[in-house]
């Protein structure tokens, strides 16, 4: 028997008709039994479950704090109440300083992050694919991640003075290694089976990289990006707090430091809240949906770990 029809031939084999139908019914029965439709929570339900408890807790904490300040009347310069903090916030807003600081910091953090992505991605690719480089440079890069990027601030100030270059330098030193390492570990975690399938399917080196390895490494890369953003934001704040003045624009870190110098605790707390809010917002609006979509498409659940 040597039929060489590659296309699904309309069964030239006898006895296959009835048996085939029978098989079809069996298979679809089994498929129905084995695939349980996942009942996902609706988005409203999800928000209610996930958002409500922490919000309630925060509200409760704020109320308790306000009560404390009203009842115990602590020194307002050491323990301002929520109303004072809100007042500071409003004042900073009205003076336009809040908007300026948020925009400056966000623009700077964003630009720094993008530059870091532009540097970290090819670096990660190089490291993942060039074994010798990896063995030599990999440990150094991991070591750099151990170094608090804030340690670069003094050196950067000497090199670049109090200019934006200092801030960018520090942000890059923080973010580039973690983006590159994220990509490397994403590529490392690509199951070798997938590469082999690609090869067997006849993919060229480039097709293998673009159609198989990179899409497969995406989750690791994304988590590297997320971590890279966290590092960017941290480093930026550190740099802004330490390197203030000169031609460095007025960011949230500068606002924090300035409020401290004016011994204005409620403005300090207000700024901390804003920094926290911006960090959470960026994570919620930029990374979380991307990650959720990516992982859900692959049937993975987003890990709680950061």
């Amino acid at each position: 028997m040597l039929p060489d029809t590659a296309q699904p031939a309309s069964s030239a084999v006898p006895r296959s008709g009835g048996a085939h139908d029978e098989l079809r019914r069996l298979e679809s029965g089994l498929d129905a039994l084995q695939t349980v439709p996942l009942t996902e929570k609706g988005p409203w339900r999800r928000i209610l479950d996930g958002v409500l408890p922490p919000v309630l807790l925060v509200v409760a904490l704020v109320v308790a704090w306000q009560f404390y300040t009203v009842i115990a009347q602590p020194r307002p310069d050491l323990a301002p109440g929520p109303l004072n903090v809100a007042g500071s916030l409003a004042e900073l807003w009205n003076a336009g300083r809040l908007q300026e600081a948020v925009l400056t910091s966000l623009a700077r953090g964003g630009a720094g992050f993008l530059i870091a992505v532009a540097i970290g991605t090819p670096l990660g690719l190089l490291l993942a694919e060039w074994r010798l480089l990896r063995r030599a440079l990999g440990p150094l890069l991991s070591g750099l991640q151990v170094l608090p990027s804030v340690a670069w601030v003094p050196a950067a100030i000497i090199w670049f003075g109090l200019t934006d270059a200092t801030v960018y330098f520090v942000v890059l030193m923080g973010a580039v290694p973690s983006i590159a390492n994220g990509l490397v570990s994403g590529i490392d975690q690509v199951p070798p089976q997938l590469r082999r399938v690609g090869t067997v399917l006849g993919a060229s080196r480039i097709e293998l990289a673009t159609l198989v390895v990179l899409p497969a490494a995406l989750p690791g890369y994304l988590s590297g990006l997320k971590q890279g953003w966290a590092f960017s934001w941290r480093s930026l704040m550190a740099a802004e707090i330490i390197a203030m003045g000169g031609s460095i624009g007025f960011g949230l870190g500068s606002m924090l430091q300035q409020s401290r110098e004016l011994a204005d605790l409620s403005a300090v707390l207000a700024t901390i809240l804003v920094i926290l809010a911006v960090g959470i917002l960026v994570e919620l609006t930029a990374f979380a949906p991307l990650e959720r979509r990516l992982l859900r498409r692959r049937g993975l659940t987003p890990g709680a770990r950061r």
Partner: protein
Amino acid sequence: MQTSTEAPPAPETLPPGVKPAIRIDSLGKRFGPTGPVVLDNINLTVAPGEFLCLLGASGCGKSTLLNIIAGLEHPSEGTVTVTSGSAAVMFQESALFPWLTAGRNVELALKLRGVPRSGRRAQALELLDLVNLADAAHKRPHELSGGMRQRVALARALAQDRKVLLMDEPFAALDAITRDLLHEELERVWRETGRTIIFVTHNVREAARLGQRVVLMSSRPGRISNEWRIDDTGPRRIESPEVSRLAIEITDQLREEIRRNAA
């Protein structure tokens, strides 16, 4: 159905004039210069359209042999010739690309084969229909059951349009009910498309159920220790007495091999 036992190495059993689909000559393999010999002096000829089952205990080198035939590994000695050029492969875990739907997985294989974009979608659907999965084309691998995934993988392997199909324990991870159904499915596809199939398995009954020829490998080093030829009288049930009889015979030899390795 008739069973015949022969002593290794298998003599040429092709009718004169028929070119073999695969020809393996005194193949040897070791990983690294100091590693133990994994495969030793393998000689094997596979006829076009033949369904050959490769049977052996864990670690005897079945996957290594298959990978060498597929061109994923290089032999240390000897030669392997796949007459039609190259082979399609199907692995134990379906190894579908998890970011693509079932349909796109098949389409990717078509794309890499060089099928123009316009024809891909229709051809992918046709292939999925061949494995009774036309309705699941838009689903992602994680939404499919294990059996469905392996059927998609089969469709993808068929999309490569190679004369030779290598299968490395494709149904080992499935439950028994699904596996039995996929045996029927695979046999049907084989009969309809006339592929040459090398099917690696641990499962003696599976080999006896599917193969036209069953080749038993010994372990450490992997050698061909025996082979059985089964006259093809059409599909047979795995519970059939012919299969049972052959399975008993093969099992006893396999156990002999295993016992040899007892410490």
